[in-house]
């Protein structure tokens, strides 16, 4: 697969035309909702004339369609925003463009990033890059697939509970969920404010780190961004202490997923690292915390879609209340409604303490447990998901079964810690399997260095 360096110092117009042609050839995967061809070619010509320079000059990329970006509507894969033309660009996109990167299109996702398979897109599912009868994973499924199909060397995603890591695992590419607050969320459609993060897919760890280093940093337009801490490292790591999370290696987890994880552990040991089994006893409860806290936050964030200032407006209504109700009913998919209503339930008077407050207290217990582990271990390792990519339609009738695919990724989201999803081989049928590396807050560079050192092994 191609890497970022393959595109540097090349004719940018040719690179963009090639990427767009390849995207069109792979239309059947439904990974992209739109192409930004006109604007991409204009920018490519500016790069070729030497007017735009930088670390990513002429490198084509794709954004998940919940990033506000010029050249095509920002739909969040919903009818609510089907015709929404962004009046501004996300800070992450601006920073990449300032280094000369060229956005060629916008990738499919579960509507408003609610889902783990990209089957909740209002415009139809994305198909897995390796086996088109299977899901792409989600919610950033389109971004994972365009990277895995080698249409672009990197693609942006958002990760609230695993939405970058799980599709990276399902399609065999690198996926990054950074420390909470690393990258500005200004101009990205909000889901759950206390766990939303911005990250990337790439074909190599080095490329993923480069993209993250460009996007990272404080932004006055997002007051939750951390003071700059992120510096890409080249130091090789020796003799790390690594914990294998045993709650992720139970009999419920696919046998080949466990086998690939154990092989990765053996390679870590061969490289001189010390790996021990550890317990994260709150892990089995994390998904329950997540499905209280996240619906609560998103029900508030999605209150802004009222059919008044922007987005879909229902026709033929008489009163303001009808306008709100019908616009929202028509503009959201069922999973959006399900989550909004769960959020309304857990936040409503009489249930708040039992659900929302209890979940936020349990979250403290989870974070305390992570902190204790990170006082003894540099890195934790687990599979990314309990199975490889499942079949299209396999889990759509049972939301809980769908949610269980996030079991191993939600703990890092709730704790705000960084986590990488890196390829670790395939199962007997050739389906990709990924492992997850987690570190303490702000230890992103350690994870990249470790993952990079293992990549060649």
């Amino acid at each position, binding site marked *: 697969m191609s890497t970022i360096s393959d595109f540097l110092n090349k004719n940018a117009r040719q690179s963009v035309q090639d990427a767009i042609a390849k995207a069109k050839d792979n239309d059947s995967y439904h990974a992209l909702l739109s192409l930004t061809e006109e604007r991409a070619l204009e920018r490519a010509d500016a790069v070729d004339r030497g007017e735009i320079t930088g670390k990513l000059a002429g490198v084509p990329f794709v954004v998940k369609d919940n990033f506000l970006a010029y050249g095509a509507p920002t739909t969040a894969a919903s009818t609510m925003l089907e015709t*929404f033309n962004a*009046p*501004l660009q996300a800070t992450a996109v601006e920073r990449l463009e300032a280094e000369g990167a060229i956005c060629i299109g916008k990738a499919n996702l579960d509507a408003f990033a609610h889902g783990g398979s990209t089957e909740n897109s209002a415009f139809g599912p994305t198909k897995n890059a390796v086996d088109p009868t299977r899901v792409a994973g989600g919610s950033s499924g389109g971004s994972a697939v365009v990277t895995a199909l080698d249409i672009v060397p990197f693609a942006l995603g958002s990760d609230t509970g695993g939405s970058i890591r799980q599709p990276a695992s399902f399609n065999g590419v690198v996926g990054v969920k950074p420390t*909470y*607050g690393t990258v500005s969320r200004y101009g990205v459609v909000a889901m759950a404010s*206390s*766990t939303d993060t911005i990250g990337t897919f790439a074909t190599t760890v080095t490329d993923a780190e480069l993209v993250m280093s460009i996007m990272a940093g404080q932004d*006055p337009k997002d*007051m*939750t961004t*951390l003071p700059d801490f992120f510096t890409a490292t080249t130091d090789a790591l020796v003799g790390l202490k690594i914990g294998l999370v045993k709650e992720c290696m139970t009999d419920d987890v696919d046998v080949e997923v466990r086998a690939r994880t154990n092989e990765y552990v053996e390679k870590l040991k061969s490289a001189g690292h010390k790996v021990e089994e550890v317990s994260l006893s709150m892990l089995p*409860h994390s998904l*329950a*915390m997540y*499905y*209280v806290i996240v619906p609560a936050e998103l*029900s508030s964030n999605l209150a802004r879609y*009222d059919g*008044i*200032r*922007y*987005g*879909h*407006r229902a026709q033929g209504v*008489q*009163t*303001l*209340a*009808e*306008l*709100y*109700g*019908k616009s929202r*009913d028509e503009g959201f998919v*069922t999973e959006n*409604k*399900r989550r909004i*209503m*769960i959020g*309304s*339930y857990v936040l*409503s008077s009489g249930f708040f303490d*039992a*659900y929302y*407050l*209890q*979940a*936020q*207290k*349990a979250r*403290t*217990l989870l*974070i305390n447990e992570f902190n204790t582990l990170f006082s003894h271990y540099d890195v934790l390792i687990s599979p990314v998901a309990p199975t490889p990519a499942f079949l299209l339609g396999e889990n759509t009738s049972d*939301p*809980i079964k769908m*949610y269980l695919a996030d079991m191993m990724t939600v703990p890092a989201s*709730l*704790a*705000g810690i960084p986590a990488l999803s890196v390829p670790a081989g395939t199962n007997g049928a050739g389906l990709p399997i990924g492992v997850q590396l987690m570190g303490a*807050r702000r230890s992103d560079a350690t994870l990249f260095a470790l993952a990079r050192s293992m990549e060649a092994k």
Partner: protein
Amino acid sequence: MTQITRDDVLHLAQLSSLALGDDEIDGLRTDIENILGYVEQLSQLDTSGVEPTYQVTDLENVWRTDTIDDYGINRDDLIALAPESKDGQIKVPKVL
């Protein structure tokens, strides 16, 4: 286990400003009941004396100067996003 009735669904839909179609109500009732049943496991955890976590930035009081910033966006571009507008104003159905 928490029982959710059809009326509960309609109440939640009202709280959420969602005018649900009849065809969606039964499915959502089952799903919401199952999801609440799943998350009820949290009640087994002993959280006495534990402070809730509301944010994970470890930042506090991020100040900015109190100056006007239009973020580079002009009024006309924003009004143009509204589904209906007239004379630079957003149109809505009558409120009262």
